[in-house]
């Protein structure tokens, strides 16, 4: 028992070690402002031709909001996001228009005024990391690839790839449930599904503290699913890490039904639960990467290195 716990403690990465050995060592402070702001992230990524979701509009000032009702005629479906939001808070998915108002992804009808006041809340910094002001952005609504869509209840499933020194080391799929209200974040009730990095097939699914094989709302099978364009996703994730010059970064991607893989956001303080969904600790993998100098390798080699390491470093 004691031996088992000690072996377990040696392989799991905890918050303290993540902060001191990874984030403060590999993530330069001045890059945080890029990653923490979706508008800046998108600007950096799109100059490198990394696919991101198109932005329809950015609202920076309260007085711009008065134009929202008129401008929204041009957009069929769209998503409202705070630029500096965290954990999926403040995101509204608008699926259509009806009777002078809008329909949200949970079939709720809201008048224009409610969306305007939501925008005002975002600009006021209600959902923002720094609690001060923020910007609101309107994005195209992404429709998940048919291989991913049935896995999630309403919300968009996303794929988190953890990239360490340019090498993808671990990945998980996050899907929404009824309890998480369309959001895929684990602490909101979403499900984390581990992914075998070598082939892009899902392994174990964790809902809260419960291991499951089927989605509680859709009854769809969660494990053993093949994720399309897997190697391309990993390459995009590795290129994102290069683009923002962060040594330890979580890249959130999804696969659009028509446009293929695209980046949703980056995270400079990626969480630890990815280890749970994959049922393995990160530390052996990170040590294995640190024994090399992967920064010098081309992207494809780094992806292969990550895949090789997950197979052998136990």
């Amino acid at each position, binding site marked *: 028992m004691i031996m*088992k*716990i000690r072996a*377990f*403690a040696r392989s*799991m990465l*905890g*918050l*303290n*070690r993540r902060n*001191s*050995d990874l984030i403060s060592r590999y993530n330069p402070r001045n890059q945080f402002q890029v990653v923490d702001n979706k508008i800046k992230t998108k600007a950096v990524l799109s100059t490198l031709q990394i696919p991101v979701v198109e932005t329809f509009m950015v609202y920076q000032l309260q007085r711009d909001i008065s134009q929202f009702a008129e401008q929204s005629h041009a957009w069929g479906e769209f998503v409202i996001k705070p630029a500096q939001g965290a954990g999926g808070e403040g995101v509204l998915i608008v699926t259509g228009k009806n009777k002078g108002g809008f329909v949200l992804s949970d079939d709720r009808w809201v008048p224009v005024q409610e969306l305007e006041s939501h925008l005002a809340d975002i600009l006021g910094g*209600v959902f923002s990391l720094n609690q001060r002001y923020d910007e609101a952005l309107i994005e195209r609504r992404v429709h998940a690839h048919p291989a991913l869509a049935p896995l999630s209840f309403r919300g968009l499933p996303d794929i988190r790839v953890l990239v360490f020194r340019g090498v993808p080391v671990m990945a998980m799929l996050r899907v929404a449930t009824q309890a998480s209200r369309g959001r895929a974040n684990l602490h909101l009730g979403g499900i984390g599904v581990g992914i*075998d990095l*070598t*082939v892009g*097939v899902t*392994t*174990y*699914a*964790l809902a809260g*503290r419960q*291991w*499951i*094989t089927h989605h509680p709302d859709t009854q769809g*099978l969660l*494990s*053993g699913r093949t994720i399309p364009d897997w190697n391309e996703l990993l390459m995009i994730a590795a290129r994102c890490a290069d683009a923002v010059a962060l040594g330890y970064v979580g890249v959130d991607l999804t696969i659009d039904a028509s446009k293929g893989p695209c980046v949703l956001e980056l995270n400079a303080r990626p969480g*630890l639960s990815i*280890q*749970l969904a994959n*049922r393995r600790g990160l530390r052996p993998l990170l040590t294995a990467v640190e024994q090399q100098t992967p920064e010098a390798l081309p992207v494809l080699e780094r992806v292969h290195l990550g895949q090789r390491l997950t*197979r052998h470093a136990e």
Partner: protein
Amino acid sequence: MVGLTVLGATLGIGALLHVSIFPMVIMANLIENFTNTQLERGTGEAFRLTLNTLLVATCSYVGIENTGLKPLVLTFPELLLGIIAVELLLGRWRGLRLVEYFRFYGVLSSPEPEPLIKTRKVSAE
């Protein structure tokens, strides 16, 4: 503050004269945070946080009053430096936190779910 003092003096309520500025500031702060949280995260969450704050404050009060901590710290203020040292020491700890043992171990020690396709075994061959 002034109002309370004047009120206490005219009505002859001695207790009101002793209200000092510090508790008033803290109460005002608590109220402000309460309304802020209520706006952003709902009334329930605001109540929960306020109750937590009051609970921690009560525990601290009991701890400070009943354990002889007050005279000790007042006589040897340099003890506070020791607290800083302990905090620095705790901050340098890189292993798992106690809560992480519970958070991770409970989940990972449960029997391994049967993966429907044993990809890792296949790829290892």
